[in-house]
């Protein structure tokens, strides 16, 4: 009896030791962002979802060891103070001993945060800040120092610009065809920010250039409100007086909400399209007092649109777990964790230099597109990679209208669930002669 019990205990004991050894290894990943705001909160949610899925599937296999992911929530307070954000990151690295960093939203703060990460040679995958200069000019000019930085979402601003201009083309075409106006007038409403300047320039040229290089339309004027303006009625009345049928918006700050609300309330007879980051959130209608219908913007995700096979499962589990529709920082953080897991797997070691090399060779399908890094460690833009969607609020719901029969070379891109763009009814009424 004793002998049998002994062997039973030994087996049990052996199993316990083995499993604990198997799970003894954890990888600490710090999710850094403004946690009091939706952008940071969604980073945390997306990362949590990915970490749970990966851990449930057995963790990350690195060489001959299995690691489980442990997430650390680091509130950087970056909206209030850049200094604070940089200190938070240093604390995460030294005191909280994170192995990898994921996150970052406010570009100016991310600039400082990445300096700290580069000092400590920690891999930092950016999931929320879009300005080109965070990676461009650093990873290419000073590769040895900044090679640890990668960006999974959003596309860098100059690539977002390309998508937004394609969306503009759609709407200009709609105006041309549905309203019978051969040369539509486009008003440019861009927040005063350095990232918007090249967009304004490019848009101005593109709009006026004759097809097929340009849109063969006319620029009615350019208005540059502050990114934190709370009232754009003056700009809107001026746009209306200028006789524009389309408003090309380049708005990433809070000004997007007053724009939508005032535009809807005053029923300005011009269709808005472009970049309006506030309009990407599911709280858009509530924030604009239900006046934000028909506003079009680019966005990473839209309900019911399968960009990749992973999109709908991601949206479904995210909504089931957190009861909110994910914004781009959520899909970004989710994708970032999978990218990291995949790279660690391929590298077979935790040595950071090898992991960087493995990251550079990433070719992974995430919920918002195919992730392949270019030479500045930004996610590649283009058909078959990651471009984002064009979405529009119709009937109090967000639906996608682009890409729909997007012709590039000999490829035609369309995602399932995309519907045609709709001009706001009062715009049609005002201009239908």
């Amino acid at each position: 009896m004793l002998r049998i019990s002994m062997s039973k205990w030994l087996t049990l004991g052996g199993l316990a030791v083995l499993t604990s050894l198997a799970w003894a290894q954890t990888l600490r990943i710090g999710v850094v962002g403004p946690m009091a705001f939706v952008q940071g909160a969604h980073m945390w949610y997306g990362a949590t979802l990915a970490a749970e899925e990966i851990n449930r599937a057995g963790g990350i296999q690195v060489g001959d060891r299995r690691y489980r992911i442990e997430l650390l929530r680091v509130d950087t307070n970056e909206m209030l103070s850049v200094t604070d954000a940089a200190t938070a990151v240093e604390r995460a690295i030294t005191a909280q001993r994170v192995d990898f960093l994921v996150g970052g939203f406010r570009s100016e703060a991310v600039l400082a945060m990445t300096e700290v990460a580069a000092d400590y040679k920690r891999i930092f995958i950016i999931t929320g800040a879009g300005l080109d200069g965070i990676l461009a000019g650093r990873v290419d000019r000073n590769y040895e120092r900044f090679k640890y930085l990668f960006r999974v979402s959003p596309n860098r601003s100059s690539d977002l610009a390309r998508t937004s201009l394609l969306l503009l083309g759609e709407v200009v075409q709609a105006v041309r065809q549905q309203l019978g106006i051969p040369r539509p007038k486009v008003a440019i409403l861009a927040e005063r920010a350095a990232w918007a300047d090249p967009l304004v320039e490019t848009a101005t040229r593109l709009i006026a250039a004759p097809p097929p290089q340009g849109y063969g339309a006319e620029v009615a004027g350019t208005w540059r409100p502050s990114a934190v303006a709370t009232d754009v009625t003056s700009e809107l009345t001026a746009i209306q007086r200028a006789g524009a049928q389309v408003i090309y918006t380049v708005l990433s700050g809070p000004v997007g909400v007053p724009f939508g609300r005032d535009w809807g309330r005053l029923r300005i007879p011009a269709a808005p399209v472009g970049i309006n980051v506030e309009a990407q959130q599911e709280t858009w209608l509530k924030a604009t007092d239900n006046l934000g219908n028909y506003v079009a913007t680019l966005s990473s995700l839209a309900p019911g649109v399968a960009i990749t096979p992973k999109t709908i499962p991601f949206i479904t589990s995210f909504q089931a777990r957190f009861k909110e529709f994910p914004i781009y920082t959520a899909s970004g953080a989710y994708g970032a964790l999978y990218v990291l897991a995949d790279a660690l797997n391929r590298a077979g070691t935790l040595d950071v230099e090898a992991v960087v090399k493995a990251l550079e060779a990433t070719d992974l399908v995430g919920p918002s597109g195919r992730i392949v890094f270019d030479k500045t460690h930004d996610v590649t833009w283009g058909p078959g990679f990651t471009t984002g969607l064009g979405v529009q609020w119709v009937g109090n719901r967000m639906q996608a209208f682009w890409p729909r029969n997007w012709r590039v070379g000999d490829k035609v891109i369309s995602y399932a669930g995309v519907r045609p763009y709709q001009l706001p009814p009062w715009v049609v009424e005002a201009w239908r002669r």
Partner: protein
Amino acid sequence: MFAAILVNGLVLSGIYGMLALGFALTYGVARILNLAHTAFYMVAAYALFFFLGWTGFAGAALLGVLVVLLLALAAYGLLLEPLREHEATVLIVTIALALLLQEVVLLLFGGHFRSVPALLPGYVEVLGVRVAQQALLALGFAAAVLLAAWALLKGTRLGLGIRAAAQDQEAAELVGISLSRAGYWAVGLGALLAALAGLAVAPMATLEPHMWNPPLLVVLAAVVLGGLGSLPGALSGALVLAFAEVLVVNLVPGGAFLRTAVALFIMVLVLVARPEGLFGVGFAEER
């Protein structure tokens, strides 16, 4: 274009005017540069948003005003009045109070933008300019409030006491006006005006925890421009700055982002030319 400037300028003046008048009252009588003034305005807007979940607009508005009044009077009684002699400390306390209110709002409501449904949806065309009906309502409301405040200040004994205390504290005390009570009344009225401004603007603005920052700068500039301690001055300052902002946005569309900078620049120019502001009351050196 002239019509657009006129209409938008008037609407903006009404709102800035309410805020500036309340601020000027608090400074003129209680000698407190209440940097939490626009924070009260924010709390009123959020309170309206919160209570609208329970009752109709009138009830929510009343509750919102009550909340702000209680908050302001409690802050004054517990924190500000005992510290009256230490001006710099009072300044910090109002800053800390504003920060505290901001963080509490952030905790309770999150950083998302909220909105309050408009009482009067839709727009009208005035002189060829499209104006939201809610904006006209706010303008009318602001005019009514300002007239009522005027009537109070000029026509009642309480108003007389407040104006006297604002003009010369020592003389007012000599005549028998209780400075402490005048202080409470002034703070209460100031907070009431801020709360009313919050209620008027809430259906047109987006509610977020930092919404108290831009109006604070404009209110400070308006009150200083008009002359601290002068109530008509505060209103004139608000008018000037509102029109300056609207002019910038209309005449220099590429420079719309500069509206606050231009407003403050105008303030600097006026002050250099007239150091007490447009209607400034030069305070006798108070010993």
